[in-house]
């Protein structure tokens, strides 16, 4: 649900940067979402598409979201793997107790504009 607030923050960041760079039209927008962020990419897409129409510069922007996986390590059998979500059951020994190391950030990586 807070994807609406995130989309607002994303558009603010885009507008600030566009002001600074004199950009009048924004195309592709790349966002990197840490696997541990607990935000839903689909909901962020939806909220972004609703809010982007409020400004001429972002009207035609296309959002792309990349999920950055977390490193996972089982405390029991030491199995190491990558997780794209909060996974805390080990796929190898099936026990609970996985240590996750990853980002919970949601980052505006880059965008294209003219």
């Amino acid at each position, binding site marked *: 649900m807070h994807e609406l607030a995130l989309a607002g*923050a994303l558009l603010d960041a885009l507008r600030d940067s566009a002001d600074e760079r004199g950009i009048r039209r924004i195309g592709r927008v790349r966002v990197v979402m840490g696997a541990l962020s607990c935000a839903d990419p689909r909901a962020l897409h939806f909220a972004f598409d609703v809010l982007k129409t409020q400004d001429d510069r972002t009207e035609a922007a296309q959002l792309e979201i990349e999920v950055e996986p977390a490193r996972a390590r089982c405390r029991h059998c030491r199995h190491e793997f990558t997780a794209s979500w909060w996974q805390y059951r080990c796929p190898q020994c099936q026990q609970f107790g996985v240590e996750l190391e990853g980002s919970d950030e949601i980052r505006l990586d880059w965008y294209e*504009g003219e």
Partner: protein
Amino acid sequence: MIRIKVGQDLLKANDRIARSNRELLRSRGILCLNLISSPGAGKTSLLEVTCRRLGPGVRMAVIEGDLATDRDAARLERFGIPVVQINTGTACHLDASMVSAALEELPLGEIDLLAIENVGNLICPAGWDLGESYRVMMLSVPEGHDKLAKYPLVVRKADLLVVNKTDLAEACDFDWDVLARDLEALNPALEWIRMSCRTEEGVDEWIAWLRARMDVSAR
């Protein structure tokens, strides 16, 4: 078209305001709690018990994130403490700028303990730092013993877990072993208290937890 590298965390603006809230509160020696739970878990009940048990020796104040009504604020104003209600309509969480505005309405020189009751929700508030000293997560027994696993971010970011409504554990077939196992998996270092605002089980432990931290922040 040119490609422009930004590399900015979207919560950065919030974090900046949260930092200034934290500095302000620290400079006044105020212990600040951010109370996070599902709707109806018992946040306001816990604050009522806390007011009663701490008594007039501790000057308490509350920021209420009840967005649609002023009922929770009215329940706490009965104790004669300052209560600021945040009214933003439909937000699913509080953010640092809302808290910053609320702080301006509070007599900061006359407060030892400030509790922020976040909007009832276990997902969205987790990502937003408000400038609190501690995050207290509350889960209530009727929600089920398996719920921690569904809200991992808040479990991971909490400083204390209060499991409320233990008086209903038997009626709800609440399995404490499942809770312990999930905690072990998600955040083994997390302290937790079994509590009932009804029978006051665990309230002594809660008050002791608070007092220990208030002594530190008053220094």
